[in-house]
């Protein structure tokens, strides 16, 4: 297991997908059970990974490297470092949770679970891949199941949302493909090995780096989603079934920022410095504030959460762009935290949608009296999303903003204003849905049930524990990020020196 653990984690769900497809159509419980069964081993392996991960090194661990297409120097090369392991853990956890959260799916459930498991495998692959080609393959493979999952099991405008998601992401990924090829041919000898590419980053001319950076960035920015490429997200979220929204917000969005950290940063450091100081930081700030303001105006509960995701992912970009240990650690931590918090939020939206069959914020009222436990969970998630101390997102947001101050005090102030805006829309929503007089229509609505609570509990525990004690994640990521920061900074100390900044 030790050496191949990541391979197992990637391909077990795939095996599961095939197994599910072979099951009889009507055996609902068998299908559910099988699907769940195939997400459990990856989860256990994730825990094992967590325990055995060497926190002291920034090197890749649990590496598997097999030639795939030798003539084109393509390898099956996977491994994890501090940046990816958090995402692997998150993916394993959320996949399991979302399978459970999908038990309510009735329509063509065999296909649903098979596609879901395929999606799971692809996501895992993206985070483990260390060969650019492999990365790209997994990246694209993810699109297909997602398209169907939104398109078949989604809401009323699912077809529109699905194709919009597909097209947007596709635009980004084809540009990534071109940039990937350009990198491949630029490196001597030609290689897709991300580590090799990074180690030769010194030999890439700045002009080339900039073009390649932009090409890659657009691909990633669409996924994050960064303004102005974000408009697919609200549509996709609103239409997607609950579990898919969770995966979308919890894992898929992270791929954008993960990609930037994994590829743009180490391989194109000079361009990264150029762009981080202007483009990335500005987009981050804008995402934070813009997302929050847009969220405030929404009347659809899910759309509001979707826009809040845009805002929260802004923190990740902001943190990465700061080029400080604090900011970049905060960014990765925020990726993890947003994954858990937003997953809770979407699960909670799903709970109420399943009961009331609508998501109009103004169409509820006083649910706290009707569904007290549900309200309690929502409050936890809301407060976590607001970045209240004691809950996980607080630490990452503080780190991100703290990191930002060194070079961008003004933008940090602008971004920090989101603490007010976020509180504004969250509290307002809280009030409109849960507080006040109970809406007659929904008196007698059943409270959150055991299965739903079961999906929320692990997330809730993580949110609270990491809020009080963030070290489990910080220790995982720190070594790799310090190294990354050094790589980027080291490559262009000259540039920084002229800007009058010192890099730790």
């Amino acid at each position, binding site marked *: 297991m030790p050496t191949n653990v990541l391979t197992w984690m990637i391909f077990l769900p795939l095996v599961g997908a095939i197994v599910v497809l072979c099951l009889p159509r009507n055996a609902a419980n068998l299908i559910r059970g099988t699907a769940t069964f195939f997400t459990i081993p990856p989860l256990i392996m994730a825990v094992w990974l967590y325990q055995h991960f060497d926190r002291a090194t920034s090197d890749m661990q649990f590496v598997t490297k097999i030639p795939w297409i030798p003539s084109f120097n393509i390898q099956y090369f996977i491994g994890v470092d501090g940046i990816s392991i958090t995402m692997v853990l998150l993916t394993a956890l959320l996949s399991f949770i979302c399978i459970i959260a999908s038990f309510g799916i009735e329509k063509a459930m065999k296909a649903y679970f098979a596609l879901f498991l395929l999606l799971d495998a692809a996501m895992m692959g993206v985070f483990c891949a260390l060969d650019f080609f492999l990365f790209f393959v997994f990246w694209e493979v993810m699109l297909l199941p997602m398209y169907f999952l939104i398109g078949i099991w989604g809401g009323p405008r699912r*077809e*529109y949302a699905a*194709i*919009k998601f597909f*097209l947007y992401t596709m635009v980004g990924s084809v540009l990534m493909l071109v940039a990937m090829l350009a990198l491949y041919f630029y490196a001597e000898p030609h290689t897709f090995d991300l580590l090799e590419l990074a180690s030769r980053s010194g030999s890439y001319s700045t002009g080339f780096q900039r073009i390649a950076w932009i090409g890659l960035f657009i691909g990633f920015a669409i996924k994050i989603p960064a*303004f*102005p*490429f*974000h*408009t697919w997200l609200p549509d996709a979220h609103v239409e997607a079934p609950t579990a898919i929204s969770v995966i979308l917000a919890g894992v898929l969005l992270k791929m954008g920022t993960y990609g930037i950290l994994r590829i743009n940063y180490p391989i194109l450091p000079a361009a990264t410095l150029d762009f981080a100081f202007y483009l990335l930081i500005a987009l981050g700030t804008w995402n934070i504030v*813009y997302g929050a*303001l*847009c*969220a*405030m*105006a*929404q009347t659809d509960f899910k759309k509001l959460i979707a826009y809040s995701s845009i805002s929260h992912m802004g923190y990740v970009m902001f943190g990465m762009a700061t080029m*400080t*240990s*604090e900011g970049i*650690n*905060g960014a990765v931590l925020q990726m993890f935290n947003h994954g858990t918090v937003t997953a809770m939020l979407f699960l909670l939206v799903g709970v109420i949608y399943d009961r009331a069959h609508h998501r109009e914020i103004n169409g509820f009222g006083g649910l*706290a*009296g009707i569904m007290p436990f549900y309200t309690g969970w929502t409050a936890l998630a809301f*407060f976590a999303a607001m970045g*209240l*101390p*004691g809950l996980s997102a*607080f*630490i990452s947001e*503080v*780190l991100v903003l*703290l*990191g*930002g*101050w*060194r070079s961008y*005090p003004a933008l*940090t*102030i602008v971004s*920090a*204003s989101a*603490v*007010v805006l976020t*509180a*504004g829309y969250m*509290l*307002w929503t*809280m*009030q409109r849905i*849960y*507080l*006040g*007089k109970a809406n007659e229509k929904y008196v007698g609505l059943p409270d959150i049930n055991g299965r739903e609570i079961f999906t929320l509990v692990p997330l809730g525990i993580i949110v609270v524990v990491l809020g009080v*004690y*963030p*070290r489990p994640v*910080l220790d995982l990521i*720190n070594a790799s990020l310090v190294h990354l920061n050094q790589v980027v900074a080291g490559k262009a100390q000259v540039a920084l020196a002229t800007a009058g900044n010192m890099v*730790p």
Partner: protein
Amino acid sequence: MSDPIAVGYLRWIILAPLIGAAINGLLGTRIQKAAGKNAIAAIAIVPVLISFVLALNAFRQLLSLPADHRFLLDSVSRWIHVGHLRVDMAFWVDPLSAVMILVVTGIGGLIHLYSVGYMHEEPSFWRFFAYLNLFMAAMLTLVLGDSLLTLFVGWEGVGLCSYALIGFWYKEWANASAAAKAFLVNRVGDFGFIVGMFALFWGLDQTGQGTLVVREIAQRAHLLDGQLLWGIALPTFITMALFVGATGKSAQIPLYVWLPDAMAGPTPVSALIHAATMVTAGVYMIGRLNFLFSMAPATLHVIATIGVLTAFFAATIGVAQYDIKKVLAYSTVSQLGFMFIAMGVGAYSAGIFHLFTHAFFKACLFLGSGSVIHALHHEQDMRHMGGLRKYMPVTFSTFFVSTLAIAGMPPFAGFFSKDEILWQAFASPHGHWWIWLVGTITAGITAFYMFRQVFMVFFGEYRGAHGGHHDDAHGSHGAHHGHAVHHPHESPGIMTTPLIVLAAGAVLVGFLNVPGGLGGSHRFETWLAPVLEPAHEAPVHEPHGLVKKVEHAAEETLEHAEHDPLEYLLMVISVLVAGGGILLAWLMYVRGKIDPSFFSDAWAGVPYRTIFNKYYVDEIYEAVFVNGALGLSKMLAAFDRVIVDGIVNGVATLTRLVSQADGAFDKYVVDGIVNGVGAVTMWVGARARAVQTGHIYSYLYAIVIGFVVIMFARLL
């Protein structure tokens, strides 16, 4: 700085109530069903008691140490070690935080006790105590946190609990709104706080010494000197930002608006959170970072000015209120203003002392008002009260004592603390005579409206024949509806006992800091001296060593020994002014010699209406900020929907026009391709398709045209 004494029990001061909150919060319903409300109460009160005992122990331990070694540290674990940021989960006690934890746990404990009686009919009894305990934990974190970040954890935590408790009766829309308002306004302050925190960290980091640990900041604060941010001296920037945070939490202009609304919460909450503890967090924070504020005289001036203005305006509003709790709320705002005056003139210990005394008498006043409200079944309008003195002797006497204290009548606690502030406002190098003047007038107004309240509530005849129940109404008093007429009655012992204790405090605690002029020894100030250095001659270029502080304190004490005759004069004046206020109230509301309408109708009633409507600040905020933000957000959302979605997807409008002309657009919409690029693509595609007429010769023409184009392209 001398090494801290490592201890292991400070964490339990926080953990005890936290555990209580966890038990009640998670298992409360079951416990309440199984073991009754008393079990809930016990689970909530015992931890507070433990905290109090531990706090006392810490205090005792500090006392046993020499003045410059009074410093206990409980380092629990590493917390955030990232980059240059080193924040541990660590709690400390020094003389300042010792005072605070005693206040919080002591008064908090009393209020817990009181709540058992006050809330006994509440079905969500468990929830209330869970919140209350959680609040205690948060507040204690705020006080004990050894770094600004841990302090901030508590800082936000109390905000959250405040939100939960204000909105405790969430079924009333107004309560929910008040809760949200409180949280939001506090968030604005928090925004300032974190900005200040970041600026501070990077200011220090610029010199390679970045830290957020308060005692390290104290040592390194001098490094900030000379740094500029956008042309502003960094210490000034930092302290201004932090002060914004303080105005939010401590309800100062311009962020005081939430506090009066916060009275929507149960009265014990008002007493605990919105009078005695949480709202003083801003003052505490300034005291905590006094060395920084001393480096920024400009900020100090702003603080003093804001403080005095808040004190004055809040007092004037208080004059015209009829809600028994609103009056107290505005008086709290006003008293907090006094504390900020003290901070602003650099007399930190005077501010902290006022905080200390205020906690007693204001808690007592709130609990007294709660007792009244309880007795009158949630009647809060003072016009429906009167003559309660007869029915509720204990409540009356404690309330009266506390009113005397807040009015600044000697020898009650408020006299000593308020007078010290006024004197410092006048005499401190950062002070000014006009601050003293406005402060003294405010003290007079305070005396007036507080006695107006006493007279309206406890004197005269009972005016509330019917049991009104609006504002504070909730399900719990349904049982009383059977009584057509009922008489007010004294509250049970569990409620009056805390009143008595607090009233005793209101009488006595003032003597802890009797100024030298009155034969005292400034014991309180001396106790705080190692921490709070008056900003008189703040040595900006020297490290703030503890030893130095002690020396200073000694000098201070000496200075006060040879007191200025002026001090006596001012003391007399302020007492006279306060007395005047009381007299006026007596004349108006007991003797009826002066009709209140004499004032209310003056100048066509404009001043009165303005005050009555709280200067319309809420309305202005609503119009400008709330609607402004909402409007902006709606605008942006529309922008997002129409423009961004449009542009990114292609020039939507243009293509729509084109496609409409084509008559094909609807079809495309139906087909699900509404996006711009989609439409452009479709349009071009349709044109391309249109070439395919089905006529073979047109295809052949295409070849010929293709040839010609290619040839020309080549020739050109």
